[in-house]
């Protein structure tokens, strides 16, 4: 049963944290931050704003753009690695605030690759449950502020949410295929649990991501007998600009083919790929084929091809 992408949504908080402000917090220069990451600014939510609040705003944006009432949803999936621990997770909160009383609401407690995994699951579930709203929402400022700021991680992250509506009804982009992978032997390379500061072995993360993202993209394209050159845009997890360009280089495509907004929002973990998709779709509403790909803590990674 085919599944289709019907539209995207996004929300970012109003507060802009520039590199100049960040430099003062972490004892580095604005130029160093941009040189190391390609990031110029990020958004931080207020202390009162929750992951569910961010997710709800992106959900409403997505539903409005897709022309679908919340009550028509068959399921919602909320991916987040920065939601506060405990139960219920943010999906129940979002469902309640959307006015849903009987609709299944599923949490995917994964960081950067969560929205990609949510999309792949939704593509399979849409035929059975009906339209599935997938949201990636993160309040990474709370993660980095849960301990004294550490320069190499604090400079990277921002807050925000992205959303996509996936349906078995005919839509603009058909999901042709998805590949997902996990390798838990790297579970300590990028980890966070609120009791200790965020732990990131940057060397290991970049080394693995630079190899695994292109390989999963080539895997999904190969299964559909397509090449990277045929793809209109690559919508990737916005980890940092250097990694985005490295993926483009590995695939043999121009860097411009990989959509990037990391300079404006930083790394918003599971939200980033869908925020990028929302902004790209408003600039290029008819373009395709499209490849989504993400890599994150776990490690989890994969790619989705839509045409």
């Amino acid at each position, binding site marked *: 049963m085919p599944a289709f992408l019907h539209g995207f949504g996004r929300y970012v908080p109003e507060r802009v944290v520039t590199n100049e402000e960040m430099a003062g917090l972490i004892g580095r220069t604005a130029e160093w931050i941009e040189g190391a990451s390609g990031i110029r600014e990020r958004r931080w939510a207020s202390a009162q704003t929750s992951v569910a609040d961010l997710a709800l705003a992106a959900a409403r944006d997505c539903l409005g753009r897709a022309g679908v009432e919340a009550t028509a949803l068959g399921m919602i999936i909320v991916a987040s690695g920065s939601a506060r621990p405990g139960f219920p997770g943010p999906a129940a909160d979002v469902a309640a605030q959307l006015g849903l009383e009987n609709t299944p609401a599923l949490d995917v407690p994964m960081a950067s690759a969560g929205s990609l995994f949510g999309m792949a699951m939704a593509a399979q579930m849409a035929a059975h449950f009906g339209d599935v709203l997938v949201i990636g929402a993160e309040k990474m400022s709370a993660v980095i502020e849960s301990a004294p700021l550490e320069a190499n991680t604090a400079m990277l992250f921002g807050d925000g949410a992205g959303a996509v509506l996936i349906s078995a009804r005919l839509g603009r982009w058909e999901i042709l295929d998805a590949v997902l992978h996990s390798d838990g032997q790297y579970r300590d390379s990028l980890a966070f649990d609120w009791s200790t500061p965020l732990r990131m072995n940057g060397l*290991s993360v970049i080394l693995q991501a630079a190899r695994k993202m292109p390989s999963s993209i080539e895997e999904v394209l190969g299964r559909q007998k397509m090449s990277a050159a045929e793809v209109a845009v690559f919508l990737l997890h916005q980890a940092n600009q250097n990694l985005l360009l490295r993926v483009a280089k590995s695939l043999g495509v121009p860097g411009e083919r990989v959509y990037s907004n990391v300079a404006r929002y930083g790394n918003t973990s599971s939200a980033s790929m869908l925020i990028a998709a929302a902004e790209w779709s408003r600039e290029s509403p008819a373009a395709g084929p499209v490849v989504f790909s993400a890599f994150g803590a776990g490690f989890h990674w994969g790619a989705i091809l839509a045409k």
Partner: protein
Amino acid sequence: MSDANRHARLLGVLKTITAQPLPADDDESLFESGLLDSFALPDLVSALEQEFSIKVPDRDLNPRKFDSVSRMETYLEDHGA
């Protein structure tokens, strides 16, 4: 391949990637000395694969294996390069 030849070719790869003078001590950490960082490392691995006609599998993508000239030489020797 002789050890001297492998060593010379390895230093050539490293000079290309780092564009800086290399440490005199082959055991010195290239990460701690600042010659290699997380963004140069993937380029280094790709360059080693090309120069020595080897394939570094994902399971070997451990930064410690590429932390110094001597560790890289050990890796290359173990993999027949």
